């Protein structure tokens, strides 16, 4: 116990050096913590949003674009597919469930997604207020959307064309809010969900020149894509091949595409990790120099401790405890700094509750930070501790 107190006092007896070392070490650790937290956020978001979706079927193009646009709602979709083709999917014995997704409009930057009740149920979302829609032009609003836009039950709004704010306003067709979802941490939080028919109605009203035109359009209705759940895991082999070869559509497997995406992100994080590693190495060197100097400065004091009867191991332990304090203080600061960086990034990118950064998390991997901190500081303290261990009292006596 006393060793902890003495080591703490010795450490802060050189406040400038100690502060500098804590700062250096904390920065390195904060970078590591930041990387760990961001990748945890991303993986959790993917896990959450992709859970239970075995395939996404949509227009031919990039499969990753299909996943990004239809499941994670981060990209624009590659195109539309005929409703009849999606309905045909349901007849396939490998398919347990098909959830249609229709994109096209937004309200103040938040996507209006046309789908079925199954979409809301898929994410096990709860209604905080109101109910689900029972006819077109009624919407259920995600928690983030409701909070950010101040939407409440009974309120009406007009969607804009396109997936980003600033498109043509569909003034003649107003949506009315009938339900608000409780925050669930999934992609639904930042969506406005309505019946697929709403999307058809808005666009047919917008583009049809007469009733005949409207009837023709009704015959050729489209959706953007369909989320598919299989009856058996074996379908993963045959279903995509069947879709890709026999239909005008493509089937993308979210698990595969996300792995590919994470691998691409991995290149970026590797660079950051190397940078964080350099910072840690610098911090380790700085701790080493500081402790080495401390041993040199205090050579007499340490020798005196030997004279007072302290065994060499105890004196080495005192030095190591100093390093331990450095590591401990730095890892606490590092972790909180890392959390702050993530928060700052979330705030900066305006990604509140979005795919990437959703609230404070404490993943188990974060334990790497204190382990690294202790590893670096104790590693840096080994040689100085050995120096302290070898404190020569005879030299102390002779150094007049």
């Amino acid at each position, binding site marked *: 116990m*006393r*060793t902890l*107190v*003495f080591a703490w*006092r*010795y450490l*802060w*007896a050189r406040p400038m050096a100690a502060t500098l070392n804590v700062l250096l070490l904390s920065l390195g650790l904060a970078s590591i913590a930041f990387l760990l937290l961001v990748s945890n956020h991303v993986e959790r978001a993917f896990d959450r949003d992709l859970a239970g979706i075995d395939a996404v079927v949509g227009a031919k193009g990039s499969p990753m674009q299909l996943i990004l646009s239809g499941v994670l709602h981060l990209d624009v979709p590659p195109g539309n597919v005929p409703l009849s083709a999606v309905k045909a999917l349901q007849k396939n014995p490998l398919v347990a469930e098909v959830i249609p997704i229709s994109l096209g409009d937004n309200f103040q930057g938040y996507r209006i997604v046309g789908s079925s009740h199954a979409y809301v149920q898929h994410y096990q979302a709860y209604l905080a207020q109101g109910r689900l829609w029972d006819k077109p032009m009624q919407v259920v609003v995600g928690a983030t959307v409701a909070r950010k836009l101040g939407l409440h039950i009974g309120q009406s709004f007009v969607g804009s064309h396109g997936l980003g704010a600033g498109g043509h306003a569909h003034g003649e067709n107003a949506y009315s809010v009938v339900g608000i979802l409780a925050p669930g941490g999934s992609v639904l939080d930042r969506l406005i969900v309505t019946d697929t028919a709403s999307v058809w109605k808005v666009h047919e009203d917008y583009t049809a020149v007469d009733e005949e035109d409207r009837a023709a359009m009704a015959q050729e209705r489209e959706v953007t894509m369909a989320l598919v759940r299989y009856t058996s895991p074996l379908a993963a082999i045959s279903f995509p091949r069947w879709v890709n070869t026999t239909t005008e559509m493509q089937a993308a497997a979210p698990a595969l595409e996300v792995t590919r995406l994470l691998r691409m992100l991995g290149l970026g994080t590797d660079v950051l990790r190397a940078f964080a590693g350099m910072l840690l190495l610098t911090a380790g060197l700085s701790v080493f120099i500081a402790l080495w100097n401390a041993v040199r400065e*205090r050579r*007499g*004091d340490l*020798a*005196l*401790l*030997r*004279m*007072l*009867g*302290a*065994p*060499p191991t*105890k004196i080495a332990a005192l030095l190591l405890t100093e390093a331990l304090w450095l590591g401990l203080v730095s890892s606490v600061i590092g972790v909180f700094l890392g959390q702050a960086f993530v928060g700052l990034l979330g705030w900066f990118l305006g990604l509140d509750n979005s795919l990437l950064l959703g609230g404070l998390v404490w993943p188990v991997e974060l334990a790497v930070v204190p382990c690294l901190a202790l590893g670096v500081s104790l590693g840096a303290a080994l040689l100085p501790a050995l120096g302290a261990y070898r404190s020569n*009292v*005879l030299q*102390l*006596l*002779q*150094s*007049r």
Partner: protein
Amino acid sequence: MISSRELNFSYAAGSALQFPDVEVDQGHVLLLRGPSGSGKSTWLALVAGLVTPTAGSMEVAGQAMHGVGQMATDAWRAKTIGFLPQKLHLSAALTVYQNLALVFWAAGVAEDGVRIKAALNDLGVAELANRLPSQLSGGQAQRVALARAVLMQPKVLLADEPTASLDDNAATDAVTLLLKTAHANGATLVIATHDARVEVVINQQSLLRATQSVQRLNLTGSSPEVSV
């Protein structure tokens, strides 16, 4: 209390020292005299069990000074030997109180706050307990270092050049205080010095001479001699 016979010590470099035999009783004073390089430090290190003699025998407070493991010697030294170094080596990071607490820590025994306060009180520096060494005058620092040396009530008190860099008055005070403190603790006092003033002060302390007889061990480095 301290007795040595045909004591020899060889440095790794090859140079060897031969020490005269000595026999000092408990509570008495040994004045270890000699110029720099005459082997005073080595003799102190031998008494403290920090080095072992290459030949001859030495016994301090009933303990033979060779053939004992380092751990046992460290523990023995913590209880038996008090040390007042020439450069005081009070830890700058610690308060006066903590500098004394360090003694208990080094010895691996439970801290005794009452004893720390008593030791500071005996040396008239109780009110400095919470100060840092940098806030002490030279005299105060030496009293604190002396309190530290006698804290464990050692049987042997080693003082290494206690008057170096002190003016005459301070030197007189320092030696007087050492004699008094050693006497109060019943410790055998060894003063290693090449300062002639120490001899003078000891001779002036006639009051003490009755209970503290003084022996002199003169080291020359080559041809040692003892005078009583």
